[in-house]
């Protein structure tokens, strides 16, 4: 998390499922019941920053307030889809900051296999991004759907690749400025 980075702040605001382990008086507001208590076993989606804070006890092995679960964006089902064909998954629909979220989640959970799946996913999709970024005619056909499904990290990658390729074409006289 870095203080002035808006993507990092937005990532922190993404929600993940939390289960309360203890009764918390007066915190029912999180559930939409102001004034009520929260009962043990209650499942609520909380923003990453809050869930992480409340789960610290759990990770230290002392009394746990909440336990965290994998967000739906990183569920078993999504991982299987990514293993089958990473290019057809709409990451943006799963989470606008899909990779940043994954990186934060992987700090909290030990999931070596997920690291491997995401690494492979990112590489396969990056190669596809590069192809589209170098196409001077812009996105066509299937490409439009693929590019629409890029998460924020991938969009920035597309922009970096596209801008350099364009500047190169401008320098060599193949394209006009602007």
């Amino acid at each position, binding site marked *: 998390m870095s203080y002035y980075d808006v993507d990092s702040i937005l990532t922190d605001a993404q929600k993940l499922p939390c289960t309360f382990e203890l009764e918390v008086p007066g915190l029912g507001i999180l559930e939409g019941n102001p004034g009520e208590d929260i009962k043990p076993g209650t499942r609520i989606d909380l923003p990453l920053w809050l869930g992480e804070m409340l789960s610290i006890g759990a990770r230290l092995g002392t009394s746990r307030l909440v336990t965290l679960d994998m967000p739906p964006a990183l569920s078993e089902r999504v991982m299987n889809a990514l293993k089958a064909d990473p290019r057809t998954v709409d990451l943006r629909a799963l989470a606008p900051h899909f*990779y940043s979220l*994954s*990186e934060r989640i*992987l*700090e909290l959970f*030990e999931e*070596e296999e997920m*690291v491997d799946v*995401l*690494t492979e996913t*990112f*590489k396969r999709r*990056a*190669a596809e*991004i*590069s*192809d589209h*970024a*170098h196409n001077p005619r812009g996105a066509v056909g299937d490409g439009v759907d693929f590019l629409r499904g890029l998460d924020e*990290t991938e969009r*920035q*990658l597309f922009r*970096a*690749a596209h*801008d*350099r*390729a364009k*500047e*190169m074409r*401008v*320098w*060599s006289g193949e394209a006009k400025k602007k």
Partner: protein
Amino acid sequence: MAFPLPRGITPSEIAFLAEMEMVTVVPRQRLEGLELLGGPVEPLVPPRPSTPREYYPPAWLHPDPLSLILEVESQHQDYKNAFSPPLPLPGQPSIRDNGLAPKARPQYTPDGDRYFPSPPFLPQNTAQMTISSRDPPALPFHWVEIGNMLLEAASDDLVEADQVRRLLKDLREIRLSKMRAGVDALDAAAVGGGGVALTGVGAMEVGEERGFLSGVVDNLRKIGASKEQARREQMAEQRANGGYNGTQDEEEEEDYMEF
């Protein structure tokens, strides 16, 4: 402070660098020597008898060497996934003497530090290139820029300029596709102490792909950060227990691939 350029020099800045390359010209008029900030320039004296040429191209900018390089890039088994070998630096053994140890020859800066010259400050694009005939032809680091500029400014003095232009275009394409096919090998650069070799790559090719490649590497590093951390802790533990003997390390070195 507004500074709009991204990290790493951009194509126009790379072209600016390439303009510092030395080329061989034939003077049309006299000009006394000049003390430039870039270094002294010799007096210009027109040759006698005069020649119609204005310019002598570097040896590589010719259909024969370029076709040979293109053949290596496209046919040679060793370079299926790699660029053809670059022009050697001073003191670097040629590709034919692969076993020889390199003898880097430093110059010394006015402050007494070692300085190893490199492009654009090596005579890679002058006509009097002193490479022995047994060395295979190779592309200079600034081949894209120099090729482009000379085709524009001095095509009359090039041998078969149209053929040269076609060959340069083919080389650009085949090398660009190698560069992009290399995404798969990039995780080797995403771990500490690792890296991906791009030896033979040209300056402009780095400039074109820099944003993409470093973006991929840096994001792969972030995705794998937890795994790298876990492995480091494990190794530190092994070392603390005296069980560390370096074998695991060697295994990891095998990870890297020539690109």
